[in-house]
């Protein structure tokens, strides 16, 4: 890792902390918050797809599980927000293990199809388990996390700026954890699996264990994002957690740079802002998406960040073979 790149992290952090103070409009604030939530989602997918090389289109399912779990636990059981979020993360973890199992036997396109099936099945569950999720009507009235009092400081989360920092805290913690993971036994094992499963196995890496870890870890971060999403928007419905959402997150990851640290963050923020500000593009939004995916994979498979730094997982074949 070049030293120049290492400087980016504190710079990015300072920017993330400072920017909201210069923001006047509620609209931009909202976009910032959504960017941060998507950054969490994308970082999670990066573990599964970027580091471990398991292409997954099931990520929206984990997002949904986190959102529904957190919403229901606080609304129906009066649980404390942070406890509910922890439970939601735990449930997402379990879901991650479940999706991880097919990954043990399937590769490439077979696996992708399986993950598509998974997200569609979960969508059906959200839609049809009416007694629990209220089906297509969704869940309304999800409250903000309760106001925190720390000494003489009170933090009211209904204020957008404060909510932003709440999400930012989780995003930063996630970032730091993944950074630690990258240069560790676990991180290297994931990358080895991505590069060559047979060589990885013969080097002592237990494929089952590490694939399941990749999926469940990625799922946990998505679950946390789901919880933060539900308590921010205040309303969730099954239609937010569909295949298209998974594709959304994949676009952010691909555009930003799979397998890099900064890539997911840039991708999430970039795409979120781009779409908000190119509202007039809304009609063409998905046409744009499609084109982007196609072009990037051929021209710069390492995404924006991979392209700039020549780091990260640029799939073999993107260089001259």
């Amino acid at each position, binding site marked *: 890792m070049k030293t120049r790149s290492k400087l980016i992290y504190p710079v990015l952090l300072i920017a993330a902390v400072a920017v909201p103070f210069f923001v006047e409009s509620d609209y931009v604030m909202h976009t910032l918050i959504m960017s941060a939530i998507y950054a969490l989602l994308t970082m999670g997918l990066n573990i599964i797809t970027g580091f471990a090389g398991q292409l997954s289109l099931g990520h929206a399912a984990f997002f949904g599980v986190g959102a529904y779990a957190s919403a229901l636990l606080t609304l129906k059981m009066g649980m404390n927000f942070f406890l509910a979020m922890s439970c939601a993360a735990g449930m997402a973890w379990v879901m991650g293990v479940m999706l991880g199992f097919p990954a043990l036997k399937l590769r*490439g*396109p077979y696996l992708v*199809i*399986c993950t598509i099936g998974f997200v569609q099945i979960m969508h059906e569950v959200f839609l049809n388990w009416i007694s629990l999720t209220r089906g297509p009507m969704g869940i309304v009235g999800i409250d903000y996390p309760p106001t925190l009092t720390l000494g003489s400081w009170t933090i009211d989360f209904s204020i957008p700026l404060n909510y932003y920092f709440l999400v930012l805290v989780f995003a930063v913690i996630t970032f730091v954890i993944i950074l630690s993971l990258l240069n560790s036994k676990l991180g290297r094992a994931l990358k080895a699996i991505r590069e060559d499963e047979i060589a990885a196995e013969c080097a002592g890496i237990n494929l089952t264990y590490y694939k399941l870890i990749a999926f469940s870890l990625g799922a946990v971060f998505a679950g946390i994002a789901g919880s933060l999403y539900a308590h921010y928007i205040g309303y969730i419905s099954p239609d937010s957690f569909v295949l298209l959402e998974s*594709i959304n997150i994949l676009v952010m990851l691909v555009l930003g740079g799979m397998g890099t640290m900064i890539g997911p963050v840039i991708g999430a923020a970039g795409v979120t802002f781009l779409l908000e500000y190119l509202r007039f593009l809304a009609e063409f939004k*998905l046409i744009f998406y*499609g084109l982007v995916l*196609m072009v990037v994979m051929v021209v710069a498979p390492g995404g924006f960040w991979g392209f700039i730094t020549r780091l990260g997982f640029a799939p073999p074949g993107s260089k001259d073979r």
Partner: protein
Amino acid sequence: MEFFQHLSSGIVLGCIYTLFSLGLTLIYGILGLVNFAHGELYMLGAFLALFAVATIGMNYFFGMIFAVVMMAIIGIVIERLCFRPLRGMHDTSVIVSTIGLSVLLQNLAIYVFGADPQRLTTDLTEVMVRFFGLAFSLQRILIVVVTVMLILLLNYFSKNTKTGKAMRACSQDLTAAKVVGININRITLITCMVGSALAAIGGGLVAPLYLVSPVMGIKVVVKAFAVVIIGGLGNVPGAILGGFLVGISESIAAGMISSHMRDGVAFGILILVLLFKPEGIFTKRIQEKV
């Protein structure tokens, strides 16, 4: 009696799945890539037929020919612009790229044709034929007839023509094919043409039976993937057998057990296959060379 009605529906359904899956499996077998946009080719075929009949005023027969020709051309364009640059690339890049193509085509269709489902009416849907106490619309008979003809045609083509044999060679070993002088570019082009045309025929034949909408592709594509995996990726006879297996099972289960089972059957078979014989029911397992 009811059983035979369902069986015959199953055969028709099987034909549709087969037409669809043939293109998909051909493209995988020869180009080595899973075309996630295949559903959109099917959908575009249906829309082109609709366009020809409803807007231009052609009759159904010529409308179908129009659709097939146009889709073959679109297939060539896609091969050049999308597939060729992806050649030799990592699985992930290819999958993401074809997903992109799928999203692109779907939304282009929504933009051009509108999101609402539309109806394609032809004479054939109205006319019913009675056969041993069972009733079929001519359209359904047409589907079966065309499918059988195409299967026979493809079989003859792949065994008796130079191009057909070249295609089979490519699906077995691309490098060896290159070495014996087969023009890979030409073969991949033809494969895409044929694959797209097959999808178009499928779409055009089905259009009068169901509604035509930009999302009709996704509904079938998941089933088609199931069929292709069940038969074995790249395995042409497997796709045909798989198509009928799924179509018939689905119809019978939906008709005789419960209509809710409709999608479940295909998924059920798929899950069983993935668990026990992921290389496909009809394919021999190839031991990966270490």
